[in-house]
């Protein structure tokens, strides 16, 4: 009985942590900030997502893993250093970084077990898009603060 409770409650514990991460990822941004960051840094995760969503297949695993890992490193660097006065991750960002690593490990194990990696890859692209949105939003806030674009130009 105790073993059963242990399995159920451990499963539920990780389930609730995943729910929390998904809730953070569902945050609505004022506009699509990620696109400018993706273009400026030549990030590749949107093309990975497009390939999975439209064609149902992704690139071969080593390339997929490397692409997502490189985007992750670039975006986490930007999260910490771009328009971030404290140069620290927030708690949400820390949690999502851990979540990314866990999902990445899950994708690797799926690959080893010869299961489809696409669902895990889609989750990873969602996390990367959130990071890109946060960076874009910060850059946008620093550029204009409380001012509108016209206020900013008038004050120059």
């Amino acid at each position, binding site marked *: 009985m105790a073993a059963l*409770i*242990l399995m159920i*409650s451990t499963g*539920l514990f990780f389930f*609730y942590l995943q729910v*929390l991460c998904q809730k953070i990822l569902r945050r609505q941004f004022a506009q699509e900030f990620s696109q400018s960051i993706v273009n400026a840094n030549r990030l590749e995760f949107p093309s990975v997502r497009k390939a999975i969503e439209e064609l149902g297949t992704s690139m071969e695993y080593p390339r997929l893993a490397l692409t997502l890992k490189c985007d992750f490193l670039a975006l986490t660097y930007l999260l910490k250093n771009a328009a971030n006065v404290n140069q620290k991750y927030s708690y949400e960002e820390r949690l999502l970084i851990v979540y990314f690593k866990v999902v990445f490990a899950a994708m690797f194990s799926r690959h080893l077990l010869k299961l489809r990696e696409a669902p895990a890859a889609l989750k990873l692209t969602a996390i990367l898009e959130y990071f890109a949105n946060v960076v874009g939003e910060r850059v946008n806030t620093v550029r204009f603060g*409380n001012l509108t674009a016209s206020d900013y130009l008038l004050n120059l």
Partner: protein
Amino acid sequence: MSDLLLTRGLQYAGYVVEAILCLLLIWQGRWRRLRVLCLYVAALFLLDGVARSASLSFFGQRSPQYYYFYWVTDVALALGAFLLVCGFFYRAFAKDEKRWSFVRLLLPSVFVIVLGVSALSITRNYANLYTVFIIEFSQNLYFSCLVLNTLLYVMIQQLEIQDDELGLLVCGLGVQFAGEAAGLALVHVTLGQAFSQILFGLLNPVCTLGMLFIWMYAIGKSPQAVAAGRRLGKGAALQEAVVTR
């Protein structure tokens, strides 16, 4: 020794966060909307943080007085958690008369079943009626809270109830209950080996801290944007949320 220090440190951090959350709820006037949550956090702080610590320093760790006091307060907190879950159910289904009438029947039934199952445990041990019943009852009640909380989360998802704050509050409670239940089950499975007891000792305050931080996030995030949205319109609310981040 170091694990004991770490456990104590985490416990005291938990008390501080409980007090901050309580003040935050009162200061921002959120206690009117989240009365049950506010009462639960206050009870957690007063019973777990203040009363137990006072009892520990007054009677000592190995005294029977502290032992009884600890388990009595544990039952009180388990009952508080059950009422909190009931409060979350009410918030989710108060406007849906049909479902609320079902839930109103379900919740007392679960409570009566837990009481009955716990009473059965007395028959196995006549020597220590009071403590056996109390420990069994509080553990069963916590586990049924975990099941009810998960049921509530599934129902929220199925019925597509758009209440992000409630979702996060339920999620926080789930982390606490699931972590605690897993730790306790591990102690039972390993027959109380030292490493499992140390793990349980650490897991418990970590899960409490996790729950409190998730609640803080839930309370601090969504209503601010809603309130600002009412004042200034949606676009301005989002801009304000960006600036205050």
